[in-house]
């Protein structure tokens, strides 16, 4: 190979590599984080409520993604096949969905296009497979997965108390369930749309398991 050819190839590769490095300047921009290590002494300003009952604030924090989410995650299944997936959600959290869906039909041809692909998604519920896929997906980071797992555990604890005749009424549980599902969907919809569709399609089936004492007991 001639030297000039090597030089041309090398410069091409270097340009590619530098293009990949452009992000470096974005991520660590504020490097003035040296002081934080001292913070161990400051008592948790808002630490305790972290995993306990973050219900109202997340709604506010996550609303924008949800609004954007529904047209992607929920509207295709509605058009594809099952009205059951959307219709049976009576919770207030579900109310935004119809509004976004009603806006979505404006570009009707884009909705009809993905329907053949989604047809496979609303299949029967396979909790184990869903769990595996949630564990494996790269759409959610490790911290986020752990935090979601904590919130799922909290909700399951509440269902346990409910089945033992405890305090939280079913409507409250349904609201929290819907909220948690919306969080999951908003996290998945951009980078793992198929899993988001699967979760969305399984919404009522999972709820059915949670509400039924016999089925819930089998969850362990």
């Amino acid at each position, binding site marked *: 190979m001639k030297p000039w050819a090597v030089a041309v190839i090398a410069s091409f590769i270097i340009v590619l590599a530098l293009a990949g490095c452009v992000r470096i300047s974005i991520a660590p921009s504020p490097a003035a984080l040296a002081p934080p290590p001292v913070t161990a002494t400051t008592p948790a300003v808002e630490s305790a409520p972290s995993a306990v009952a973050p219900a109202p604030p997340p709604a506010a924090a996550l609303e924008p993604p949800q609004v954007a989410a529904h047209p992607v995650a929920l509207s295709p299944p509605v058009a594809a096949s099952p009205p059951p997936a959307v219709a049976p959600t009576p919770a207030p959290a579900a109310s935004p969905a119809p509004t976004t869906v009603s806006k979505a039909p404006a570009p009707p041809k884009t909705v009809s296009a993905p329907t053949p692909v989604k047809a496979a998604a609303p299949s029967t519920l396979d909790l184990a497979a869903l769990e595996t896929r949630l564990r494996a997906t790269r759409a959610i980071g490790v911290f986020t997965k752990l935090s979601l797992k904590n919130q799922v555990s909290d909700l399951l604890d509440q269902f346990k108390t409910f089945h033992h005749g405890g305090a939280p009424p079913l409507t409250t549980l349904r609201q929290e369930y819907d909220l948690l599902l919306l969080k999951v969907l908003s*996290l998945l919809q951009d980078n793992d749309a198929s899993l988001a569709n699967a979760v969305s399609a399984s919404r009522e089936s999972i709820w059915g398991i949670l509400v039924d004492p016999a089925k819930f007991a089998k969850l362990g």
Partner: protein
Amino acid sequence: MSTHLTAWALIVAIAPLFAASSRAAEDTLLLKDLTAVIALNGQSCQVVSAVRQSESDYFASCEDGKRYRVFTNAKGRVVVEKQ
């Protein structure tokens, strides 16, 4: 200089660039993860940088100047502390 030598020199020179690029991608993922976990805990924060304290312990700085410590406690729960 032989062609082979030139090629090796180029590889050695370019490899760190690719390594830096993949590290930057990991950083981006981490920032997204921290942003999501802070949102899940009810706080609004677009994380722009993070400092790792230990394996599961980060200080995150938000776009608006707020800071949060995100870590897993002894019970395995993710805790978000406003600093």
